[in-house]
């Protein structure tokens, strides 16, 4: 196991190094941030000075080399625009994105899996049909539209929920204050709709497939109660592919909350990264993508570990 973990860590480091190089190169090629940073009344000399101050006057190789040396000392550089350490800025924004993603994911799992099971047991019942109709809608409706409609109904017309912002924060999250929860409801729902529908449909398909298997029939023939068959034997076997998907989807949620964050003026990393790309703020873009790739790598790792609990065959 130790060897396996070390191996994985080495691979992860390699992945992150490659990513840093690619991002660094693309941002280097994308243009000159100084041109955007300085006001029009700056002179050519000011531009030259600013470039030197940010180290942008050096060649690509020199800049990247310096970046690597700094990274080895745990320093990802200062943001060109904000002047603060890039990693600090990313971490400052990360909790806001994480809480959206985590709560939306938990909600999707807690609602999606049971509904998926219900609709798989009696696929032709009215309840199942209603569930499937809404899940289809959930998968097809664009996030932007969902968000705007929620705002229109609950903020502009009814005036019961705040249209934007994060609300009161306690211990890194707004989930512990009433004001914070009120602010969380709409963004979380917006973000969860697609995930919920996806998980629901995957659970249903998986369950229906498993329920056709011989061992389920055997269990039924042996007189095992229906509930035990469904919620224990069948569900457990459906979970394996589901966990993979949930893992991937969670990474997606963290990385692509941008639309939801924009609609609800949510101060997370999605908004930060788009601004930073537009302003060519390379240190932030690099720091953000490194953090995100680290999260992806970590999730994949955890998914692998989880497998070993659900599926004994993997444990060997």
């Amino acid at each position: 196991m130790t060897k396996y973990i070390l191996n994985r860590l080495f691979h992860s480091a390699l992945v992150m190094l490659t990513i840093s190089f690619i991002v660094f190169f693309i941002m280097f090629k994308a243009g000159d941030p100084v041109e955007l940073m300085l006001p029009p009344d700056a002179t050519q000399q000011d531009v030259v000075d600013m470039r030197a101050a940010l180290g942008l006057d050096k060649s690509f190789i020199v800049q990247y080399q310096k970046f690597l040396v700094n990274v080895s000392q745990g320093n990802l550089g200062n943001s060109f625009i904000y002047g603060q350490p890039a990693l600090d800025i990313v971490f400052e924004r990360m909790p806001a994105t994480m809480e959206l993603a985590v709560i939306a994911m938990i909600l999707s799992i807690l609602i999606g899996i049971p509904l998926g099971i219900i609709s798989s047991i009696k696929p032709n019942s009215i309840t199942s049909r209603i569930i499937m109709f809404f899940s289809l809608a959930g998968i097809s409706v664009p996030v932007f539209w969902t968000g705007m409609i929620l705002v229109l109904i609950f903020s502009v017309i009814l005036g019961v929920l705040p249209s934007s912002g994060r609300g009161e924060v306690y211990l890194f999250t707004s989930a512990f204050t009433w004001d914070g929860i009120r602010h969380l409801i709409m963004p979380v729902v917006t973000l969860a709709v697609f995930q919920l529908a996806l998980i629901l449909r995957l659970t249903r398909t998986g369950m229906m497939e498993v329920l056709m298997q011989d061992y389920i029939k055997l269990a039924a023939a042996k007189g095992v109660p229906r509930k035990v068959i469904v919620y224990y034997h069948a569900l457990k076997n459906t979970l394996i592919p589901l966990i993979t998907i949930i893992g991937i989807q969670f990474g997606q949620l963290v990385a692509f909350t941008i639309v939801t964050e924009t609609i609800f003026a949510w101060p997370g990393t999605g908004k930060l990264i788009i601004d930073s790309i537009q302003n060519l703020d390379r240190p932030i873009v690099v720091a953000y993508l490194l953090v995100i790739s680290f999260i992806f790598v970590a999730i994949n790792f955890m998914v692998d570990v989880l497998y070993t609990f659900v599926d004994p065959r993997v444990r060997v």
Partner: protein
Amino acid sequence: MGNAKTLKVGLASGALSMDPYAHNETATNSILSNIFDALIAFDKDINTHPGLAVSWTNPEPTVWIMKLRKGVKFHNGSKFNADDVVFSFNRVKTWDKSGFKGKVSAIESVAKVDEYTVKFVTKKPYPVFLRKLTYVNILDKETLEGKNDQWIGLNAIGTGPYKLTSWSKGDHIKLDVNKDHWRGVAKFDKVLFRPLTNNATRVAAILSNEVDIINRVPVVDVNRVKSNDKLDFFVQPGLRLIYLQMDQDRDNSPFIKSHDGKNPLKDVRVRKAIYYGINEDAIVKYVMKGFAEPAAQLSPKAVFGNDPSIKRAAFNPEKAKALLAEAGYPNGFEIQLDSPNNRYINDAQIAQAVASSLAKIGITVKVNATPKSTFFAETGKLKTSFFLIGWASSDGDASSILDGCVHSYNAETGYGRYNRGRYSNTKVDALIEKSAGIMDPAERLRVLQAAQKMAIVDDQNFIPLHYQVDIYASSKNITFETRTDSRIWAFDIK
């Protein structure tokens, strides 16, 4: 909380730094203007008034003696005096990441005369001195000495009507009223600035009563806002000109295909033809939905240097065609129009409208709209023949656009950095340089107007399109006053 009155403001973009010298950019300047004071202050019509300086004399053309306001304290209690002024000007001038060097480049030295008097020496007579000073917020020497850039970027300690209490980046900036402010105590106990960058979100926030003011009401939502009887609606003429620059330098311009292989833009008749051939009224009506003012010159009315005698010529495609024929291009030519697509209001759509207008006089225009990061870098390298760009005369003086865009390019003197069409007329240059040293306002105005007339009317060096306007909505519960400089200054809001 309790009975404290909070003014909530939804902004199209937030502050980038709490360091007042980091970014000369409207959104940051607007927020920081509530926290800091400069020696000179703009009123809402960008006229200059005493700020932290109470009076000044100009004994020699290059010397300014300024008396400072006594009894002013910074938010942390430390006293304001001449040392702070000297410290601030030195930092703005020498800090390697200062975005305000252009505001102080003409200042040779700043010295303390006594506790409440400072002496400025400028390199040359400097008529726009007071206007430039409005951009230099005064920092506290005692507090800042020994602090690093990061600390200064997060902690704003000024003398302004409000003090910073918290800044949660991307979410809010909270200010508390400064009860010791020299102008008096502002009406609102607290101010909350929220960046609501998404247009629909910003509108939803004011419609649902969550904020009291929003700026940049998107034109598509104007009717929704106007028809809401709880909201006031404001249109404030702005300082930004949207215009077209043309390559008037190279004989073979890279993005032009003409039958004779030459650069037709070097011929003033062709440039005039483009001016007459663009239906600006239609652009204002259809692209800007009426929220822009057609421009005939470089400076809007509020700016010193505006020439009321220059009127916009009517759209005249016949005249345009005749001029083209006269210049030897009866069948027009092909050209690429470069434009940013995320910098100015509807920038790419304006470029498209220009293209379809010019198509009717025979000029085939291909629009190349790119993000601002690409656009400014490429035009800076002159990889363009024809492009759409904007300029805000934020000093309230025409010298900035004349120096920056009209004067011939000169890397050493810094003139013409944004003159990317490389228009060059030595007579215009001479007038611009002359105007920089004239201290008498009336005479200076004449010279500025003469320079502009020569460039824009005689030479048609640019094609002015329109001036942007700022659109605001505010709750009827408050009395909001818009400002020409686009700032939201809470002290004036009741």
